[in-house]
């Protein structure tokens, strides 16, 4: 018997870790990985609630989230490769052509 809030807490911690990673890290691949961490945290909360409220829709949604995450990872990595070809760097601070 594990309290629900435990799962939710873990989910929150994972999410916060993901955000912090996004902010702190300089390597763009690492940033992507922290995005994945965030998504996983959200997935966990979905499953926890699904179990709590005895509704399978939560798990179905998790399925969809994973699909989207996969797609996004693929495209994102492709972008990274394309950027690396032109910029020769993986440092996100040096990819600031969008500045004013």
């Amino acid at each position, binding site marked *: 018997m594990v309290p629900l809030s435990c799962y939710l807490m*873990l989910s929150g911690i994972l999410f916060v870790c993901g955000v912090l990673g996004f902010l702190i890290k300089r390597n763009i691949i690492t940033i992507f990985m922290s995005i994945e961490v965030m998504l996983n945290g959200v997935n966990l909360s979905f499953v926890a609630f699904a179990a709590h409220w005895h509704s399978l829709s939560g798990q179905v949604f998790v399925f969809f989230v994973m699909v989207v995450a996969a797609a996004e990872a693929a495209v994102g990595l492709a972008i990274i490769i394309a950027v690396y070809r032109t910029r020769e760097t993986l440092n996100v601070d040096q990819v600031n052509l969008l500045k004013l």
Partner: protein
Amino acid sequence: MICVAGAVNLLVQSHPINSALSLIVVMASLAVEYLLLGAEFVAAVQVIVYAGAIMVLFVITIMLLNAGKEERSKGSRVAILLGVPGAAIGGVLVAWTLLHRANAETVAIGALPGDPKAIARLLFHDFLLPFEVTSVLILIAIMGAVVLASRPEAIARPHPSTPALEETRELVAPGKER
């Protein structure tokens, strides 16, 4: 615990490959959590898709691009100043809410059996449309990834031209060198 350790390690490590490995650790532990919650299908999918495919993709990219240790670079002060406190505040608020308002509900281990049959029933009945849309989404993602990551010349190689095609080209852009 392991999960949290893995997540923190991801932050701490400076070499991306180390971060990737710790991410795999996180995924695995999450799969175990799902099992605990009785979502077998989701756990399986997590391992296969996430830890198996996506992380492999990440590792391949890291090795392809020869990503090295992270160098020091001029970061953004805003990110540190605003973002970290923001994240911290958000986290604290959520935690506080949870601690305050949760009235000690518990979830039994294996409470809800999430066997594939039940999930499949939902997927193909109630959530059919989203299912199809996501499949199209994946297709588009594949195409986009291929286009983005391929070499420029591979895309722009012209088709072998016929006389009719040449005449049309002359009409559109007379005298313009291709």
